């Protein structure tokens, strides 16, 4: 009998990145201006501050089946609003642990600091996230209800 070859479509994770207007979004713009090539997996949502992103949105995104969620903000101390990213940092540490506790790989939720000058870092962060999440495979918690 001929081998029924399983046609495996390559897994292309879908990753959401919330970027703060002042640092990370500007860094993403700079990556563009600098033509730093990167994987196509990441979609950016602009917010004014990383501190605008509540855990509800991250959890909802993962429950919707998105394969990864990132929050990208200014480096600690550089927040345009002085302290927004410090609050984000606290929340993210708690959220990350809670997600892992429930069995969601910690790579699926990341907070990273990217300044307006770090176009290269933005592209590196995107690449790293895409690689890691591709290796993990699809998010197994998603449902489109």
């Amino acid at each position, binding site marked *: 009998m001929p081998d029924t070859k399983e046609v495996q479509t390559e897994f292309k994770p879908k990753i959401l990145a919330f970027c703060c207007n002042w640092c990370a979004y500007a860094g993403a713009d700079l990556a563009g201006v600098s033509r730093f090539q990167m994987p196509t997996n990441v979609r950016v949502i602009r917010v004014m501050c990383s501190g605008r992103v509540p855990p509800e949105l991250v959890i909802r995104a993962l429950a919707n089946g998105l394969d990864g969620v990132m929050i990208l903000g200014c480096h600690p101390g550089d927040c345009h609003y002085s302290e927004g990213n410090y*609050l984000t940092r*606290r929340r993210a540490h708690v959220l990350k642990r*809670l997600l892992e506790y429930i069995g969601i790989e910690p790579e699926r939720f990341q907070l990273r600091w990217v300044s307006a000058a770090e176009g290269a870092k933005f592209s590196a962060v995107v690449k790293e996230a895409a690689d890691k999440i591709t290796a993990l495979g699809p998010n197994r918690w998603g449902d489109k209800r």
Partner: protein
Amino acid sequence: MKATSEEVQTSVKKLFEDGSIGHFIGYETGSDSLHVTPCFLKSGQAASRLVWNPLCANNLSKYLLDFKKVEGKVGIMVKGCDSRSVVELLKENQIDRDKVFIVGIPCGGIVDTEKLLAVLGISPGEVVAVDDDGDAFLITIREGTRRVQKEQVLRGECLACRYPTSVIYDVLLGEAVSSLPWVNNDYIRVKELEALSLAEKERYWKRELSQCIRCYACRNICPVCNCPECIFDKKAPRWLSKANDVSENLVYHLVRAFHVAGKCVDCGECERACPMNIPLRSLNKKVEKDLLELFGYTAGIDVEQQPPLTTYQVGDLDEFL
């Protein structure tokens, strides 16, 4: 000395008489001898209905939200854990300290009735009374009295209770208890779950979360879940589908764990209320443990303490460089 039902009745009667309170929230015997039910008094006359015994599990503090607009002060009976949720309600400006009269009751632990029936091998109808007797409970059944070691039959939260005596009160009935002998190893269950592999965690929680019927009892009974309109009840935006599946239940329970982060005092009411026996305390305790380890924070101790997720230190742990 431990406070008795009679002591509670006498004190409450006196509080009504001297005008200290206009309302009182306590416990009375419920549908059978193994249950108590919340009791709301408007005068001292019916104070003889009040009881205090190791069945008084309900955290009554949530009812304070319904008594915001009444005349006079509202008296309320609080165990150690209940008093800590009162602190959280005060922190969130949900109640006015001047309008509540807090009757603190040192607590030697609450009976888990399921465990009790299993240990004694009896049916609920056989129990006549349950009393506190130091390191044991005295169970009066039809045939006589049985003594059961507390550690065998306590509720889970009582096995981990660090605050048996009210942290805030206007009057304390009975002698303060500073610590409970059986409480030593915190977060045993959380640590067990943390030690599982990711795949095991996923399996475990997917099974538990799939049990949820979204009756919202855990939310509705929780004193620190006190939003007049919960985001899950909002039509727009819709955070949660009414469909019951694991992913929606995940959103519900994780977001709830986050919303009570830094406020949960482990009164255990969510887990007690859950008809599906979902280990909800294991979720909330995890967050509690992380807040303690990361930021040195314990909820419900001090009204002046700022909630941990509304503040920061420049030198906070940073795993995200």
